[in-house]
C-alpha cells in the first residue's frame, strides 16, 4: 500500500533504489564513526598507551640504574620483555573501562534506543562493537608494546640481551596485546549484560580480580581462572600450575565468547 506513494520530499530519493538496506558492514562502519567521535574512548586509548610506555620506561630505568640487580621474584623487571609487560595489569583496567563505556555510554544517554531503531535486529550492533573494540585495542596495544620493548631494549642492552627473535618473545609481546584486546571484548559483553557503567565495572573486575581468590581455595581451578589463563601467553618457559600459552589464551577467549553469547541472548529478548 505504501509502495505506490509518491514522495516529493525525498530530494535524495535515489538512495532508495541504490539498494539501501542494513548490512553488517554498514553497521560496522557506523560504529567505527561513533567510536572515533567519542572523546572518552580516545582519552582512554591514550591513557592505555601511556600506561604501557611509562611502566616500561620506569622498570627499565630502575633495573639499569640499580647498583645491584634486584633479587629474583621481587617484582621488578630484569629484562626488556619484563619491562615491556610490566604495565599490562594496570592497562587491563583502562581497556576494561574502555570496553564498558563503548556500550554503557549508549544506555546512559538513551542513544541505544535510536541505535536499535535503526538496527532493530540488534545483534549486528553487538557484533560491530565487539569486533571494533577488540581490533582497535589490539592494534594500539601491539604498537605500544613493541615501542616499549624496543625502548627497554635500548636502555637495558648492555646488561641483558633479549631480542624479538628469542623464542617466545614475539609471542609474549603480541600475546599481551591480544590479552588486552580480549579483556576489552569481555568488557563490551559486560556492558551489554549490565547496561550501567558501575554495574559492568563491578562485574568485570569482580571476574578478573576477585574470582582469582577462588584459586587459593581450589588450586586445581587456578590455571583456568580468567586472568591466569589469559596471561599464560606472556609467560616465557614453562612453569607449574600454568596452562600452555595458547591453551591459556583459548580459555580466556572462551570466557569472552560465553559472555558475548549471554549478552546476545539477553539483548534480543529484552526491551531496549
Amino acid at each position, binding site marked *: 500500500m505504501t509502495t505506490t506513494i509518491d514522495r516529493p520530499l525525498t530530494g535524495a530519493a535515489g538512495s532508495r533504489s541504490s539498494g*539501501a538496506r542494513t548490512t553488517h558492514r554498514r553497521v560496522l562502519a*557506523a560504529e567505527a564513526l561513533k567510536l572515533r567521535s567519542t572523546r572518552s574512548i580516545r582519552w582512554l586509548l591514550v591513557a592505555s598507551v601511556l600506561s604501557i610506555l611509562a611502566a616500561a620506561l620506569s622498570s627499565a630505568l630502575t633495573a639499569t640504574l640499580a647498583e645491584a640487580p634486584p633479587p629474583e621474584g621481587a617484582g621488578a623487571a630484569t629484562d626488556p620483555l619484563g619491562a615491556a609487560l610490566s604495565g599490562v595489569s594496570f592497562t587491563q583496567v583502562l581497556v576494561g573501562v574502555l570496553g564498558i563505556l563503548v556500550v554503557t555510554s549508549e544506555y546512559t544517554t538513551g542513544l541505544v534506543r535510536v541505535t536499535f531503531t535503526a538496527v*532493530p535486529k540488534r545483534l549486528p550492533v553487538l557484533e560491530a562493537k565487539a569486533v571494533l573494540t577488540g581490533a582497535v585495542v589490539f592494534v594500539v596495544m601491539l604498537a605500544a608494546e613493541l615501542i616499549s620493548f624496543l625502548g627497554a631494549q635500548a636502555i637495558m642492552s648492555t646488561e641483558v640481551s633479549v631480542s624479538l627473535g628469542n623464542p617466545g618473545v614475539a609471542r609474549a609481546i603480541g600475546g599481551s596485546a591480544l590479552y588486552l584486546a580480549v579483556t576489552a571484548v569481555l568488557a563490551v559483553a559486560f556492558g551489554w549484560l549490565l547496561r550501567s557503567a558501575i554495574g559492568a565495572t563491578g562485574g568485570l573486575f569482580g571476574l578478573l580480580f576477585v574470582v582469582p581468590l577462588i584459586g587459593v581455595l581450589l588450586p586445581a581451578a587456578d590455571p583456568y581462572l580468567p586472568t591466569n589463563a589469559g596471561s599464560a601467553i606472556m609467560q616465557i618457559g614453562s612453569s607449574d600450575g600454568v596452562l600452555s600459552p595458547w591453551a591459556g589464551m583459548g580459555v580466556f577467549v572462551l570466557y569472552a565468547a560465553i559472555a558475548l553469547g549471554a549478552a546476545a541472548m539477553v539483548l534480543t529478548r529484552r526491551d531496549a
Partner: protein
Amino acid sequence: MIEIRNLTKVYGAIRAVDDLTVVVRPGTVTGFLGPNGAGKSTTMRSIVGLDRPSGGEVLVAGRRYADHPAPMHEVGALLDAKATHPGRSARTHLRALAMTNGIGRGRVDEVIDMVGLSGVADRRVGGFSLGMAQRLGIAAALLGDPAVVLLDEPVNGLDPDGIRWIRGLLRGLAAEGRTVFVSSHLMSEMALTADHLVIVGRGRLLADVSMEDMTASASGQVRVRSPRTAELAQLLSGDGVAITRPEPDVLSITGRTSTDIAETALAARILLTELTPVHASLEDAYLALTAHDVQYQAISHDRTDPGRAAA
C-alpha cells in the same frame, strides 16, 4: 500504515498497554492522545520493536518492523530528543545513523537544512537546547525518507516558531501520502494538526475518531433554564436528541438548535429565563473521555466545568 493488533504490554503488575487495536492510515496526521502514563510511549516503542509486546503484534506496511531490510526507510521515529551522545556533533550523530541503513551523506545535509540546524550542525549536541534537540531528533526521523513518521511529543521544548514549523511539517508529510502518528497529551495542539485522533487512557483505547466527529461531539449543546423544564423536555424529545436535567430548572440539550428550542417554547407559551449555546471545546470532550482514566489526578480538581473551559 501501522496495524496495532491486540497489543498488550505488561511491566510487572502494571498493564501499560491493554489489548489495543488501532490502524493508523497513510495520508493523514493521526494524533495519539492520552494523559501521562496512558501507554502512548510504550505503544510507540512497540511499533519500532524496542519493547517486546506481552501480547498481540504491530505491523508496519504488513510486516514486523524488525523484518524490514532497511527499517529507517519504513519508519522514522523520534521517541526521545535527548537520546544522543552529548560529545558528538549533530552531523556525526546523523551520519552514523544514516550509515547503518546505507543512506548517503547528501541526505544527511539535506535533513539538517530541512530542520534548520545548518548553522549548528558541527557543534556538540551536549550544548543543544531542548528545542534544538527536538529538531535534531526530527532530522533523524526523516533521514530514511520514511513512509511512516512516528513522533513522541515533538512540540516539547519548541518555541512558538518551532511549534508552527512542526505543524506545517506534519501536514506536509501527510499530504505527501505518509502515515504520520504523533503523540501528545495536549488536545489543543492536536486540534490544530491532526485529522484523526486515537485516544487512550490506562493503556486502553478510548476513542478512534476523525477530528470532525470529535468536534461534532464536543459542540451543539444548549443550556436552558425554565420553571417548566419537565414539560419542555417532553416537547423537545425526539430522535437524536439527548436531554439531561443537571438542576431542577435547567436542561442540557443536544440535538436541537437554540432557535428550535426558543420556537418550541414560544409555541407552548413556556417561559425561558436562560438560553445558552454551550460550545464545549475539544479539550472538554477529551477530558470528559479520559476523566476516569487519568493516572495521576489532583484531588477535587474540577475538570469538567463547562463554564471554565468554554472561555
